[in-house]
């Protein structure tokens, strides 16, 4: 049991989380869950950003992660508003049922 772990473990963890996010996107039917999977992917990316930031001993990675966070916030606001509207109009949250442009 080493006292410390190499940075690449963090990257692999981020990759795994990202894969989980993709999986969620692929296999879940609930729009909100899909949306949350996207958030998970963003988080994974953030992790790798910060890991690289550590590797390079520069704060830039953190800044990037911060920006990702901000964008995620904006995206969540708008996305959830869209979901609300969709639900208002179609009374469904199942992603396969909103596959047609006009109902």
């Amino acid at each position, binding site marked *: 049991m080493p006292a410390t772990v190499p940075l690449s473990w963090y990257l692999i963890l981020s990759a795994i989380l990202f894969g989980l996010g*993709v999986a969620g*996107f*692929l*296999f879940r039917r609930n729009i909100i869950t*899909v949306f949350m999977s996207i958030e998970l992917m963003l988080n994974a990316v953030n992790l790798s950003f910060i890991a690289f930031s550590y590797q390079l001993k520069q704060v830039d990675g953190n800044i990037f992660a911060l920006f990702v966070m901000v964008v995620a916030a904006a995206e969540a606001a708008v996305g959830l508003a869209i979901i609300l509207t969709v639900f208002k109009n179609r009374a469904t949250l199942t*992603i*396969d049922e909103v*596959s*047609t*442009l006009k109902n």
Partner: protein
Amino acid sequence: MQHLWLIPALPLAGFLINGLLGKRLPNLVVSIIACASVLASFGWVLKTLAALGPLEAAYVESYFPWIQSGTFQVGFDLSVDRLTAVMLLVVTGIGSLIHIYAVGYMAHEGGYYRFFAYLNLFMFFMLILVLGANFLLMFVGWEGVGLCSYLLIGFYILKKSAGDAAKKAFIVNRIGDFGFTLAMFLIVVNFGTLDFQRVFDAVRPMPIEQSAGLLTAVALLLFVGAAGKSAQVPLYVWLPDAMEGPTPVSALIHAATMVTAGVYMVARAAVIYQRAPVAMDVVALIGLLTAVMAATIGITQNDIKRVFAYSTVSQLGYMFLACGVGAFSAGIYHVVTHAFFKALLFLGAGSVIHALEGEQDLTRMGGLWKKIPITFGVLACAWVAIAGIPPFAGFYSKDEILLAAHHHAPWMYWVGVITAAITSFYVSRAMFLCFFGSYRGHHDHPHESPFVMWGPLAVLALLSLIGGWYFKVPHYLETLLPMQNVGHDTTLVMISVGAGFAGLGLAALMYVVKPELPGRLAGALGGLYRLVYNKYLVDELYNAVLVRPLVGGSRSLLWRVMDAGLVDGAVNGVGTAARSVGGVLRLLQSGNIRSYAAWVTLGCVAVLVALGLAAGGVR
């Protein structure tokens, strides 16, 4: 640095202000802005000329490279030489007077701000035309004034005849512009530049072409343009119709400034013409023909403005005759004097029309001299000026031209003299019909125009009286446009003056002494009279020869076959092709987001494979 750009910029500013906010501004403000901008640019012209002094050589200010492709480049350059100086003074001076006049004349018209915005815009383009230091910039002004004349002829947007006249003017000018453009192409191809200085420097060493050659071609093409803009045969037909516009417009654009642009252009390109005698002869002949034709038509017209319009055409013919016989400075001289008295004639006519509340028919006037004495007085000045009575303005310039014509070919002189007689006849006729005899109209108590209108008239009257011997234009232009020294032959002068008096007398005889004579005369030579009265049926001729075939052809061939058949067919073909391809592709776009996601993932895998294995890893 004289800041020449201010000269056109000021009217442009006026145009922008009036055009953008004029609707909200009160008429007083609008007129103040318009007149102030033009007056300011007039003042700036004076200041600039004072600062530039004798102006032996052209003074050029180049601001920025405008068009640049390879070795060919056109700069946004303005230049002033003596020719430009004369034109600048005429344009801005007469322009300001007419602006002031228009304030009174348009007082009760709708679209007041629109009118002045257009007028300012015209001033801008005209000044660009005059100041431009290369053919292209000149062409910009050229097109601009064409546009403004279109807008102003069709100013009474509700009158169909106005709209038609505007379109006619525009289309006929197109033909002329076509020639101008071709000329520019020729110049670019052969000299690689459009800059006046460079082109003329390139031309000067060239020999005089005995037969047609490059310079002849350029000169002729340029003259096509000039003919279009300056209403020469065969493109003069638009100018009489242009009288549909408000009278100040007729005075400013269709008498004083724009229509003389052609003359200015020919004079500007004098270096080229002097080396293309063939073209010179063509110019002279066309000019002469125009002069005669328009003058004869002028005799028979009854609409006062039309009479003056035809007189303008024939005077323009004179100017081209001057250029054609090599007396360019005489042509410009006539441009100046003509600007004075023709503007005055039109404005006076406007004043008369204003007094009669829009009555333009000579047969319904008469005996007005005691009703509107001031107008009669100023018009009388213009009358003597145009009739060529010494020592008034018209006499000097016409005299110069005729002498030059005689020196070139005596028969031209004689034709010119006859035309002069006709000119003086029809102007006198108009004057007699308008002011003498008994009042034939049924509109009672005509009223004199306000000061704001007859003030400018007075100034112009003074100019057309003394302008001739006061402004020695040919002497001023000597260095720029040398004219072969023609001996001052007194007999010839006497003859032309006599012709002027003869025309006047004949008119007096026919329209004052025995008013029934004209009717009998017309009856006697009926066919000829009718032909002339109908303007030699030129419009009808053009209609039959050009317009109908064009319309028919475009209807049958261009529309049915080309457009409907080929173009639409191609478009529809593309459409159907895209539709069929899309029909296949849309299977991909199921609208099922998760399958999209799957595709994206596949793409990522592909990228990674490319990155990691093919490219040998992230480096």
